């Protein structure tokens, strides 16, 4: 099994991260609003090797975000366990993981602090962790922003730049923490499709330069196939993997991939499955979340 994985990794991943492997083992999450038990995650198991871009695809409200929140340490799980690089994050006797700078979330609507300038936002994590001196932190922040094409926006507030740039600032802010895993919660949902395509390429570029594992939630199939090494299509609530699919289009990718025959094939192969779950979810009247 390990040899197979190794083989896969060397073939698919230009960025060979050695850390940030996530193992989700038989996780169950039951919410209990007013005594009415609602199962959000149903015996979900998933292995994400270090350095993979793992796309979690599922209808709105299927419980994908619950899984992300469990990894990030924002919410507890009911049973099962989640570990990173062999170390338990949460599991028996420890229902909620500690939030930490090794797992940074890029939120659906963005969580840049509007009262801090972009530069201050980017420098926030290292300043809080006290890992470096102030001067080094700001130097690093400036150079990382420059690398991401954000020069000239350092002293703007997030509210003063376009939403696409804001997302980029947020990703840079996440990377400043040297995370092992980046957790994306439908970060490009609110963007128009043109901005989205630019953001996708920018994200891949950032990914190629940094050794991170990416756990990316979306309900946009095109986005999922374009970015991911692997697609995990979830069932509608309660959520568990329904179909796992390798995307055998080699990285590095650019937007020409979208018109390739293989891309179309993969779209066809998956859209029926996704559509079926979406219909179920719609019939069940699930709310967003």
């Amino acid at each position, binding site marked *: 099994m390990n040899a197979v994985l190794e083989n896969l990794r060397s073939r698919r991943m230009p960025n060979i991260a050695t850390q940030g492997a996530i193992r989700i083992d038989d996780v169950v999450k039951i919410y209990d609003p007013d005594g009415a038990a609602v199962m959000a995650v149903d015996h979900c198991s998933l292995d994400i090797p270090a350095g993979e871009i793992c796309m979690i695809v599922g209808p709105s409200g299927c419980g994908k975000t619950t899984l992300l929140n469990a990894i990030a340490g924002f919410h507890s799980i009911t049973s099962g366990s989640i570990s990173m690089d062999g170390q338990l994050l949460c599991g028996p006797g420890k229902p909620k993981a500690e*939030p*930490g*700078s090794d797992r940074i979330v890029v939120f659906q*609507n963005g969580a840049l602090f509007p*009262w*801090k300038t972009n530069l201050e936002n980017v420098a*926030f994590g290292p300043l809080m962790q006290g890992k470096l001196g102030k001067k080094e932190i700001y130097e690093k922040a400036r150079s990382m922003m420059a690398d991401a094409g954000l020069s000239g926006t350092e002293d703007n507030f997030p509210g*003063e730049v376009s939403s696409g740039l804001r997302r980029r600032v947020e990703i840079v802010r996440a990377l400043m923490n040297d995370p092992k895993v980046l957790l994306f919660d439908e970060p490009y949902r609110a963007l128009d499709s043109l901005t989205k395509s630019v953001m996708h390429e920018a994200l891949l570029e950032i990914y190629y330069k940094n050794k991170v594992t990416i756990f990316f939630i979306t309900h946009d199939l095109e986005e999922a196939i374009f970015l991911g090494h692997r697609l995990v299509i979830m069932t509608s609530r309660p959520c568990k993997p329904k179909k796992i699919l390798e995307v055998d289009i080699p990285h590095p990718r650019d937007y020409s991939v979208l018109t390739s025959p293989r891309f179309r094939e993969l779209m066809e192969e998956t859209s029926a499955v996704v559509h079926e779950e979406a219909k179920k979810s719609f019939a069940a009247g699930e709310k967003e979340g």
Partner: protein
Amino acid sequence: MSKSIARLKNRLFSRASLRACIALVVFVVLWEIGSRSKQWLGVSLPWIGQVPAPSAVMSVWGDLLTNRGYWESWYLSLVRVLAGFIAAMVVGIPLGLLMAVSKTFSGLTFPTFEVLRPIPPLAWVPVAIIFWPTQELSIAFVTFLGAFFTVVINVVGGAKSIDSRYFQAAQAMGASQWDIFRRVVLPATLPSIVVGSSVGMGITWNVVVAAEMISGGGSSGGSGGGLGFFIWNSYVGGSYEQIVVGMISIGIAGYACSEVLRAVGGLATPWLRQR
């Protein structure tokens, strides 16, 4: 510096300020005609016919500008407003933050707070006079109450509505509880503090004037009892022009206070400024 002067110039000569000037002039002219309707038109218009004309008011005002008592009224009212307002901020902001942050504290204090809040500040005047040793303190206390409840309610509302994503992001990036309070809760609440304080400032002016009328102008009495007392005194003395002078003075004072607050608020929340 020259840039800000240019901006000021632009603002002064903009279309908006031209409109404001025209509106003011039209208002004053109509008022003058209304007041002098008996003299000019032969019939006294209802209500406005009894009001002293702006020209008469201006001439009385001109005399008052050199009157020490008039300026003392300004000073006294301003001091009371500021005392009450600052006390309300100093007590109200931490109290509001505590109520927002701690469920226990909020559970213990909020019911009492909500019972006291609807009581109009002026209903406190008799009690305030009994409670406090000097009339000056009584008036400041009533003024304080005027701003206090508004400030607290706004701070609580602002701090409670902070998006949980900010807390989660800060926590994941290694911020301590204290860091989160200082770098997330405080700045995120600032806009509500600014709003609460500007509303509160308006209320303090309402309250101080009424309190001065009721309590007879505080300890100094006579002609130096604040703008509220100045109006009341003018009424008793039968100088209707002075009443209007007092009213306009309060309007100007209140407006100036709001402008100062707005400027300070703008400096404190630069991310909300439109560039």
